[in-house]
């Protein structure tokens, strides 16, 4: 048995999700091999070769892998799938985009978003916005799985010395072509790997008012997140959304400001270690999951908090 992990990276370096996915792979029997598909991605391969528990890194370098289109990844992964019992990728928009294509062509029912490995064929995963945890056994001979990062502690980034081997790239599928990207640039930590997150909801009232939260975030070295309502209202970009259908986070400290605590929002943050809720409505459901609740007008207390820190 050997597990293949498909690395998420930006060609220069691997994302944190790669190392939590490797952690899940290391809990399965047999070796862990990591595929780095990309363009000029040698530094990523070298970084991953040092990670704990990686037996080998294989690299497919081609211009058409620069943006990792699902159709191209599908062909590449299928071309090497025979060698592996398990195929794992992060349950991020990167992994979710291509793994079902691989699963379908291998005639396998994928197991999405696992939070726990019980054995080589049995896994736990949240369903119904995290209102239930299902234990699922796969009877397919190969397993195709996406891994929820908050379910696993990242492996150590140093100490390993895996070999790096080049493999030939597949052809460009051509059914889809990259046009462009508008990525959010921020000096702050990335949401899914931040240890502190300050999130704002509809109660913030406007995009300008989010500046208060940015000040707070900078004092705490935190990332800034948001509820769906704040994103829909255009206060902040889509990639800030935390929740069932946005990002799943579990920082040491999550501060929810002007967020009511709808089940879909809770699904994305209720595994945070410490939750603080600031809301003027004492009945807001967010207080049911908060360790520390402050019933107050955010426009009064956030400036006070910024002053106090």
């Amino acid at each position: 048995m050997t597990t293949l992990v498909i690395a998420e990276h930006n060609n220069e370096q691997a994302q944190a999700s790669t190392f939590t996915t490797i952690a899940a792979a290391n809990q399965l029997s047999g070796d862990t091999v990591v595929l780095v598909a990309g363009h000029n991605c040698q530094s990523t391969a070298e970084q991953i070769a040092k990670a704990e528990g990686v037996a080998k890194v294989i690299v497919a370098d081609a211009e058409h892998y620069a943006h990792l289109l699902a159709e191209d990844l599908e062909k590449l992964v299928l071309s090497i799938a025979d060698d592996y019992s398990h195929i794992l990728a992060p349950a991020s928009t990167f992994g979710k985009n291509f793994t079902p294509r691989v699963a379908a062509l291998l005639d396998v029912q994928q197991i999405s978003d696992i939070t726990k490995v019980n054995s080589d064929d049995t896994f736990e995963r949240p369903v119904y916005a995290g209102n239930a945890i299902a234990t699922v056994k796969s009877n397919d001979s190969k397993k195709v799985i996406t891994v929820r990062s908050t379910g696993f502690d990242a492996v150590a980034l140093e100490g390993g010395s895996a070999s790096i081997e080049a493999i030939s790239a597949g052809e460009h599928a051509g059914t889809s072509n990259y046009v462009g990207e508008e990525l959010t640039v921020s000096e702050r930590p990335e949401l899914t790997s931040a240890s502190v997150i300050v999130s704002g909801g509809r109660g913030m009232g406007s995009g300008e008012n989010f500046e208060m939260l940015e000040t707070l975030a900078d004092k705490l070295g935190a990332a800034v997140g948001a509820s769906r309502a704040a994103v829909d209202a255009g206060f902040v970009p889509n990639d800030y959304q935390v929740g069932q259908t946005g990002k799943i986070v579990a920082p040491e400290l999550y501060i929810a400001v002007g967020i009511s605590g709808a089940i879909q929002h809770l699904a994305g943050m209720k595994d945070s270690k410490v939750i603080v809720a600031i809301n003027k409505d004492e009945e807001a459901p967010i207080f049911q999951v908060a360790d520390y609740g402050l019933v107050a007008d955010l426009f009064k207390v956030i400036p006070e908090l910024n002053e106090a820190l």
Partner: protein
Amino acid sequence: MKILVAIKRVIDANVKVRVNSDNTGVETANVKMSMNPFCEIAVEEAVRLKEQGVASEIVAVSIGPQQAQETLRTALALGADKAILVKSDNDLESLAVAKILKSLVEKEEPQMVLLGKQSIDGDNNQTGQMLGALLGWGQGTFASEVKVDDGKAQVTREIDGGLQTVELGLPAIVTTDLRLNEPRFASLPNIMKAKRKPLEEIAVVDLGVDVAPRTETLKVANPPARSEGIKVETVAELVDKLKNEAKVI
């Protein structure tokens, strides 16, 4: 062009879902069911493409129990032209749903299949991508904008880092994200009209597709509960608790 829209009937997003007493699933008795919200967005997008003159016909498809007929009637009231119900009393896995959709695509020959990015019950986020692979089509998943022009679709996608745009040759798969559009409500006259639109029923067995389950759900349990927290009165008290009790700042 013809558009096929796949819609799933699910427990309504506002229902507080509860695990059943024998830990085999969730309570479904007397629970409100609705169209999966992402599928509503898919129907709305198809209707808008028709209003723009890009689409000429919209076929709504659902795979599910007899009651999924109601969900299809809603799609017809929103603007779909005809509906197909593939009857199955078992909740089918994404792979089986994708295979069924493939067989319908081969019959209907649409130029685009619109699906939700995920069902809010199983939270799988798989079916559209699987269908794309089975058909050998390109895909634009998690779409927040769709433009069809000159036999091609430009799809802007909500990705973890921001937005990405891809160009797809048609036919293609598009799965919807929350910001794609705001679905309309069906008007009473349209609800009445929908009753006369064609709704075909097919039994799964008649499609000759392998829908045997590949996975077994061994247990469905409640998530770990969080212990009750406390209310603080002032910002100073909050800061003190975070520093000295929780030790997180």
